[in-house]
């Protein structure tokens, strides 16, 4: 994986900064994400991790800095344009289309590929019917990969928590991304579900040839599956490196446990 880093990064973030009024939520955040990487983003609450995700996906515009995909600079684009260029995400607090079926949740992510016009759908042309069937088949096949096809017609709201998480990840993957941003996917999961989740993350990276950035509080998950980790505190990057390096980094320990503990743990 380290060898790949010399090659052009799939996502290159340079000096990303975001001010909310006078508050600097993210300050000079840089990251060169290699293709196929599984990169962790950790830090105490309020460190600005989710803000970084919001900036990358265009949910909020950055104050300064730039974000590049290999072909294109994407900061300042609309969120839906960024998604279509290949960045998808999940949310910390699950944001499914909760009154719609699992299938529709996925089919909405396919909307960009539904290449029939409004007139086709209003007149129910052959083209519409064919494309719609194709789209539905595709969505069902896709759900089958996640073993969600049996509950395709369930309303998303009625699913158990762990399944909602999986639907959300499936929905994000349906956008056909090159980079997937997972915001605390293990939040609220029990240990068994967490193990399943870790398998799932490995599986989707290999299966869809993705690069993944993962925000997570559960150290087991982060240390267990991430190859590289960036640590943030108060909007700034305070450390980056392999899980082992991070665990022994004095500043990281300080950020998490306070100054007094730093010497003891690192020593």
């Amino acid at each position, binding site marked *: 994986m380290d060898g790949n880093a010399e090659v052009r990064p799939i996502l290159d973030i340079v000096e990303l900064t975001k001010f909310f009024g006078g508050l600097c939520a993210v300050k000079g955040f840089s990251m060169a994400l290699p293709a196929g990487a599984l990169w962790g983003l950790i830090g105490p609450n309020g460190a600005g991790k989710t803000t970084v995700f919001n900036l990358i996906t265009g*949910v909020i515009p950055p104050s300064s800095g730039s974000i590049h995909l290999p072909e294109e600079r994407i900061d300042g684009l609309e969120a839906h344009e960024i998604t279509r260029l290949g960045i998808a995400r999940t949310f910390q607090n699950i944001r499914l289309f909760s009154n*719609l079926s699992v299938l529709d949740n996925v089919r909405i992510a396919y909307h960009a590929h539904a290449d029939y016009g409004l007139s086709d*759908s209003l007149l129910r042309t052959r083209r519409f019917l064919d494309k719609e069937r194709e789209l539905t088949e595709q969505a069902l096949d896709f759900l089958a990969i996640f073993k969600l096809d049996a509950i395709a017609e369930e309303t998303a709201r009625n699913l158990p928590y762990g399944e909602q998480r999986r639907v959300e990840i499936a929905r994000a993957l349906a956008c056909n991304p090159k980079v997937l941003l997972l915001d605390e996917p293990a939040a609220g999961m029990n240990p068994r579900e967490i193990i399943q989740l870790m398998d799932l993350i490995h599986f989707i990276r290999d299966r869809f040839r993705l690069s993944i950035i993962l925000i997570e509080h559960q150290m087991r998950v982060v240390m267990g599956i991430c190859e590289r980790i960036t640590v943030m505190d108060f909007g700034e990057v305070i450390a980056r490196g392999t899980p082992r390096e991070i665990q022994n980094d004095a500043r990281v320990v300080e950020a998490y446990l306070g100054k007094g503990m730093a010497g003891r743990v690192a020593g």
Partner: protein
Amino acid sequence: MEILNLLGTIVKMGAVLAVMLGLIHMLGRKAVWRKALGIALAFGVVQLAITLHFGDFQLFGDFDQGLLFQAVTMAMVALGLNLIYGFNGQFSLAQWGFYGIGAYCAADITFRWTNGDPRGLLVVGLGTILAGLAILGVRRAVGRIRGIPVLSAFTLYLLATVAAAAAAVVLGGLLAPSLAPLLGTASAPGLLNGALPRQAVFFLSVVFAGVFAAEVSFLFGLPVLTLGSDYFGIATLGFAMVVKTLMVNSDTILPFPEMKGGRGMIGIPHFTTWAWAFFFLLASIVIMRNLVHSSTGRAVLSVREDETAARVMGINVADSKLLAFVVGSFMAGLGGGVYAHYIGFLSPGTFDFIAGFNPLIIVVFGGLGSMTGTVVASFGWIFFLEGFLRVLLGQLGTDAPTWRFVLYPITLLLLMLLKPEGLFGTKELGFLKAPRIVRRAAAEAAAPAGRKEE
């Protein structure tokens, strides 16, 4: 006799509702002949009830017909509003304004036409077509510019439509003298003089009214839909008030003396027959259903469910909102055109924003996000409120019918307490249901996969 009358109203109410539900059911059948049969039956039964006379007894007298046409137009307006509010989640009070715009627009065309002036048809027709082309053209151009601010885009659209409208007025004025003898009017000989052309003019006037309302809604919605939901609601309230004020002053501020401002526009030809009303209602239902059950419709729904998530799923939220708003307003415009030619008299008072709460109540009553609910609620509401309650309370005294405005809020309160999601929630019946999902190997794959899960 009065009791009989009351019972009769209840029976008619039930019958019309049954006809509408039957229509929705039959349209949902696979075989084309069944659909056609459903349409023919629904149309025929009501038409018979209108035409059949037994001596001086008529199944559907003037009073019942009034209810029927009111219900049809209300259903169209409410369906449009359901698309905006129920399916797309944008609380709008402007629907009634677009209804009024459609009514006045269509009425002006046919009024002028029956009075020997083809300019109404020419100018509005040319205007809506040119403005439509202008909007599409600007849209194409603006689409190329990345990150153009909404207000700049809006200015471009506005300039283009104003230019198109001005061109239409000039062109219409120039063409009218030369075309008038050729086309003719109701009173003058020409191509458009006759029973069939008269129907064509009516049809065009209603369609142009719908398109006109849609174009106005596009221009209004473009900047205003970027506001958050509550602010959008307030802005639409403002819009409804502006529309009403313009109607009151249509002969002073606006150059339309035939609309007669606050005195009300009289002499609109009664072109709306049950056939037309039924046709336009059916068209609205089909448009709604085909839109909602498509990828575009799912995008519209996703905006209601979670705007941020929709954006991140690659949905162009601004476009989705605009689409729902424009199509919804189009239906309001159609409804207005149908209404104007039924009632024959338009007064600005009808389009007061307070009355605009009626479609809103119907949409909530029927269920936000249920087309079936909206259709049922429109018919039920009008027949219950204007029919049943009026007859029932009429027994108690001449002023008693006013009490229905006390009774109906109470009904609404009760419904909200007992069934807050509305009569139908988001359920649909027959034709309006989402198409069934047919999988290639559905049956055998589903069962074992279901076991594996857990």
